[in-house]
Structures are given as C-alpha cells and as structure tokens.
C-alpha cells in the first residue's frame, strides 16, 4: 500500500514540476513575442547608419559603436516634445470630459431604472461600433464648421465620442457591483439621491474610474485617422501622426529616430497601464459578466 501511495506522490510531483517548467517556458515565449520588436527597436535606435544599412550585419548587435545622435535628433531637430505634450494634454482633457459625461450617464443607466435604460445602454454600446473610418469624411465637415480644423482642439472635441461609449459600458459594470443597500442606507441617513451617489457610490467605484482613465487615455493616444484627417500643421499634431510626418520624408525613413520615438512612447504608457491592470481587470469582469 505504501509503495502505491509513494508512486502516486512521485507522479504528482513530476506533474507539478512539468507544470512549472511549462509556465516559465510559455511566459518567456510570450514576453519575447510581444516585446521582441521593441527590444530590437531600442537597439536600432542607437545604431549608426553604416551599421544599420548593411544587409549582413547582425541586426541584434552593435557592429559599430552605439551612437545617440539619432535620439538627439529626435529631441533637437523634430517637434517630438511638442507631439508628446499635445498627446498628454489632449488625453487629459478627453479623460476629464469622458468622466464628466460618462459617470452620470452610467449611473443613470445602471441604477435609476427607467423603462428605456436597457435599450439606451445597448444603443450607446452600438455607437462604439460606428468606426472612425466611416465618420471621418463627414466629421471633417463638422469640425470645419466649428472652426477647429488644423487645431489640436478638434481632437479634444471629437475623441470623447470614442471614449464615452466604452467608458459608460465599463462604469455600468462597476456601478452594478455596488450593493443597492449602501445607497439606500445613505438616503435613510438623510442624503438625497444625488448626495448618496456623490458621497457613497463614487468612492466605491474609484477602481472603475481609474480603469476608465487608463483605457480612455490609451484609446486617445492610439487614435490615428481623425488626427490624420483633421490636422495638417505639424506643431498641432499628436504623437501618432506627428512622429511619422516628422520622420518619414517621402521615401526616406529616419529609422533610428522612429524606433527611439516608438520605445520612448511605448514604455511609459505600458508601465502606467501595468500599474492599474488589476483595477482594469476588475472593471471588465463586472462590465462583461453582468452587462
């Protein structure tokens, strides 16, 4: 009998070790597949032209000494800092508008049950399905009518149409997860319906708000078509269209500077996202499982 138990134990241990090895191997593989292009971009950013443009040079090593002239070029001779600044302030304003409009809307749909709440929630979600590629031609006319064309402000005006629907959807999930008793108790304690929302519900959905801030900012920073269609003066552009315009001149690509810009933008955004990943995940669970 003892022998059989030992045998079983050994078998279980073997399985556990095999499982651990598989986890580490797969994690490594995933990391290399996902980040490989960025690691390699970081190497390229510091290469000399004579090193980069030789077909038989090892692309993963410095065959000549690394140089930082192309990174300096990015900062000194292009408007890269302006693009970063534009993306930042547009992103922050869009996030503020998104929360200002989206939070009350999500609360209305999730909590203040009206007969139209359900259909309205679905309608708002479907707005997210109307792609920018369909709207940019006619939106450029609307933007022109407001006098904002060729100004970064046009993006502040237009981007909330992308971020509000998703954010309302995410926030509804968070709001539904807050027990109704909490508001009811607050109202028994003398708060108005509005007061109960502001004082008791808002603090509880703080994780959801963080998730929305991160998600909305990422969407804004990645957007390409509207920025391409609405804005032509270089100093008004955000990163996503500014970097290619400044560093691709006709058929000439400033490859090292392009790669430097990619890495410099990618790393901080991913770091912030990683910090808030848990909250973001919590938001999706509630939004998707119950919505």
């Amino acid at each position, binding site marked *: 009998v003892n022998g059989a138990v030992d045998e079983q134990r050994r078998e279980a241990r073997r399985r556990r070790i095999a499982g651990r090895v598989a986890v*580490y191997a*797969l*994690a490594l593989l*995933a*990391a290399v*597949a*996902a*980040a490989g*292009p*960025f690691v*390699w*971009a970081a190497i390229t950013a510091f290469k000399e032209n004579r090193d980069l443009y030789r077909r038989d040079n*090892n692309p993963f090593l410095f065959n000549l000494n690394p140089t930082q002239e192309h990174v300096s070029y990015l900062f000194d001779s292009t408007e890269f800092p302006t693009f970063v600044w534009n993306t930042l302030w547009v992103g922050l304003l869009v996030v503020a508008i998104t929360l200002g409009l989206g939070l009350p*809307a999500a609360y*209305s749909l999730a909590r*203040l049950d009206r007969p139209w709440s359900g259909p*309205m929630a679905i309608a708002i979600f*479907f707005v997210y399905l109307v*792609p*920018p*590629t*369909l*709207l940019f*031609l006619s*939106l450029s*006319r*609307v933007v022109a009518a407001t006098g904002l064309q060729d100004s970064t402000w046009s993006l502040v005006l237009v981007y*909330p*149409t992308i971020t509000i*629907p998703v954010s309302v959807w995410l926030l509804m999930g968070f709001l539904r997860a807050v027990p109704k008793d909490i508001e009811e108790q607050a*109202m*028994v304690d003398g708060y*108005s*319906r*509005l*007061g109960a929302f502001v004082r008791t519900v808002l603090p509880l959905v703080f994780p959801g708000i963080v998730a929305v801030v991160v998600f909305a900012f990422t969407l804004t*920073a*990645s957007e*390409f*078509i509207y920025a391409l269609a609405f804005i032509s003066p270089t100093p008004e552009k955000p*990163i996503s269209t500014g*970097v*290619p315009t400044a560093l691709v001149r006709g058929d000439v*690509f400033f490859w090292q500077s*392009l*790669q430097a*810009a*990619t890495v410099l*933008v*990618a*790393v901080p*955004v*991913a770091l912030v996202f*990683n910090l808030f*990943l848990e909250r973001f*995940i919590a938001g*999706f*669970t509630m939004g*998707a*499982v119950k919505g």
Partner: protein
Amino acid sequence: MTVRDRSYEVVAPPARPPRSGWTDREGFLAWAFLLPSVVYILALVGVPFFLAIAFSFSDVTTGDPSFDWAGVRNFARAFDDPVFWQSLRNTIVFTVVSMVLIVLFGKILANILLADFRGKWLVRFLVLLPWTTPVALSTIAWLWLLDSVFSPIDWVLRNVGVIDGNVYWLGRPNLAIASIIAVHVWRLVPLAAVIMLAGLIAIPKDVEEAAAVDGAGFWRRMFEITIPLTLPIIAVAALFGAILTFTDMAVVYVLTRGGPTNSTQVLASWAFFRGIEGGDIGQGAAIALFLFPLLLAAAIAILQAVRRLEVT
C-alpha cells in the same frame, strides 16, 4: 412622469425626513444624467453618420464641395470596381482569421498571466507593450522588421539557412496578407488576454478546487469547467478583437498602403484612398458605409451568443 416614479419614497421608512427637490427626483435625475452624453454623441456621431450617408448619394469631391444628388451612382461604381470586392473579401478574411488567432493566443496568454511565477510583473509589462503603444508607431516598428532588404527576420532565416536572399514580406500578396494579420494578432492578443483574465479571476475558486479534489486534471478542468464558465467573456474578447481589426486602417496604411497592387486593400483603407487621397468624397463615403452593416451583424451575432450562454 417624474412625480409618479418616485417609487423609492413609497417603501422608505417613515422615520425618514420628508424631502422634495430635484436632487431626489429619480425620473428627472435619470434624464439629466444621461442627456449630456446623448446630446454629445448625437451631435458628433449621429449627425456625421447621416451626413456620411448623404455624401454617399452625392457627387461631393474635395475640389467641388457643393452637394448634388447623384443617386446610387457611387454604389454602382463601387460594385463595378474589382478592388472593392477585393477589399471586402480582405476585410472579412483579415477579421475572421485574426479573431480566431486572437482568441486562441489570448486564451493561452490569459492562463499564463493567471499562474504565479517569478518576474510576473516584468512579463506582464512586456506583454502589454503591443496593446498600449499607439498603433501607428508599433506598426512602423514592424515595417522595419519586414523591410525588403534589412529585415532582421530575413537575417535570422538567412543565418539558419532557410533562405538565400530576402523574403520580401510585403512585396508578395500572400505574404503581405499574412504579415498584416500577424501584426493585428500581435497588437490585439494582449487586450483579449486581459479581458479573458478578468473572466478567469471571476470564477469562484471553490469550483476549481472541488474539481481538482475530485481528480480532474488540468485539461479536463480547462475544457469542462473553465471554458464553459467563461464563454461569455471569451465572446466579448472575440468581439473586441473583431471590431478593432475590422475598423482599423492604420496597419494596412503604414505597412502596405493596400499593395502590392491592391491585394491587401481593406474597406477602410480603400475608402480613405478614394475619399481623401483621390478626393472623391462621395465614393469614399459609399465604400465606408459598407463597414457598418457588417459590423452590426457581427456584433449582434456575438452579443446574442453571449445572452444565450448567460440564460443557460
């Protein structure tokens, strides 16, 4: 309706002080809270949407922006153009293939991220990079990876001895299609993984543990418990993957500009080339309009699948 609907007041304990005023009227609050978002979206999505439909029946061009009724001429011209059908086919192929691969790799990645291991924070950070980087920039990084002469992928293949010269990833129709799908999958797998990770975390621990105690192995638990329980959220991940592939034109625009000879053109990029670069806004709008019914059908199908799963 606002007064009648104060149902909460009826069940309120009598000890509560009587109240009135707009801060308590649910019917009013429900509207007041929702209205700003609805107005914003109507003005900047609704109006342009109908304007886009109007453009598609007009002869508006960049050179002559005056609106003249053109009937269905834009659509007729689109249907006569083989590039339109090529774009439609590519759009569907890219979306379906990417969606399947995104769900598959996303599921694997989600399970990796669920496991405990050393250096998880770093792996999570590295894995998120493709999704959080602005798509125009990450696609430019890929443009160099797939360069016709200096491609590092070619260099590796040459040194392993698989090829002699260069592959010309973006120069041959089939390879270009594969490259575009690869970039879509690469950039969207992290998002799908994060969504599915959310579903995995939501599974009550005791269900898994009970199954493990009963002797169910990893694969059996996976296919008989985890996947059925998280199917709705897998569908959501699939939906996001499909929408983001379907509507994207940045990847095609940066990698191939639709080439070689329109073999990788999608509806979004074809609409852009006709509408903006070709200046024929009416024609561009007619092409872009085809995105909507397809997207709507896909979304309804997936949402209904989710609902059916939730009921059972």
